[in-house]
């Protein structure tokens, strides 16, 4: 575990290292560089980050680019073919209509959002209408009918108790 005081040299080095991990470059001020030379913790950390940055920068240059010209050629040939075959030609594996209408644009986002809102509103309306119809049906079925004997047996003590309770209040 690295021992350091907040605001001390090691802490400042750590902040520079943190910044370097974002900026991609580590260039310490002279005072901190001198500290890094003396401090084993800081020197190890700085070396590690510098090595990583250097490896990241040199990796792309070390990649072999031999597949690139072939890929570029294939793309350019496909684009040329789509033009020479003018209005009917197609990209490889694409339907003719797709290539024949290169000015096809994506649908505007606001229209998509509007359609979603309309769909949700329609679903809510249908659900509310259905529930209202069901409620009317239930109301119509129970209107004017007496509760059954079993219901009356359970409800009557409660009704008596409520009436007794509010009799004194009146």
């Amino acid at each position, binding site marked *: 575990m690295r021992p350091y005081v907040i605001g001390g040299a090691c802490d400042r080095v750590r902040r520079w290292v*943190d910044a370097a*991990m*974002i900026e*991609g470059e580590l260039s310490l001020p002279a005072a901190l560089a001198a500290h890094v030379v003396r401090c084993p913790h800081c020197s190890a950390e700085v070396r*590690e*980050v510098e090595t*990583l*940055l250097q*490896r*990241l*920068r*040199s*990796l*792309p240059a*070390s*990649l*072999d*680019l*031999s*597949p*690139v010209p*072939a*890929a*570029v050629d*294939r*793309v*350019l040939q*496909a*684009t*040329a073919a*789509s*033009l020479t075959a*003018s209005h009917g030609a197609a*990209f490889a594996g694409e339907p003719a209509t*797709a*290539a024949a209408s*290169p*000015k096809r*644009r*994506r649908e505007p986002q606001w229209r998509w959002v509007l359609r979603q809102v309309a769909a949700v509103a329609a679903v809510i309306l249908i659900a509310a209408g259905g529930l209202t119809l069901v409620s009317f049906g239930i109301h119509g079925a129970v209107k004017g009918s007496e509760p059954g004997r079993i219901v009356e047996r359970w409800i009557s003590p409660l009704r008596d108790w409520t009436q007794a309770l509010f009799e004194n209040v009146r």
Partner: protein
Amino acid sequence: MARTDTARREAFAALFSQMAPRLYRTAVGILGNPHDAADALQEAGLKAFRYFDSLTDPVAGPAWLNRILINTCYDVGRRRSRAIPTGLGIVESPGGYTTPETDWALLVALQVLSPEQRTTVVLRFFQDLTIPQIAQVMAVPEGTVKSRLHASMAKLRAALTSSEKEGVQ
């Protein structure tokens, strides 16, 4: 009409040919595999040509192409992870796609990162883009780019340290 089409194709060819090496390196960084990277480059090129008319500002061309390539790389990565359930893996090609200097350990370590983190690191170090440029390409705030870079570098350091320790043992 034909003249417009030709001019359009020439403009696209100039942009794509110029950007292709950088795009390919970016694809290798994101996918970790030269074969898939070449496929992604080709697919992205065809897609870009199809929608080239939607590019109104020519200055935005590189960022626009980068965005198309990144999305294509994500698609290729998803397809590959569906096809090979063992997950992402570096294919060390015997077909001359690598050089002795290629830092495979680092390329493998990059696969530890999430696709968004990997893309951020690749754009920063492979394409040398600035933080505002990365934010533009990835359509995220600059703060997000910074936090992704910091988290990615911490993850990379940990991954490389542990792999080096394993190598020593």
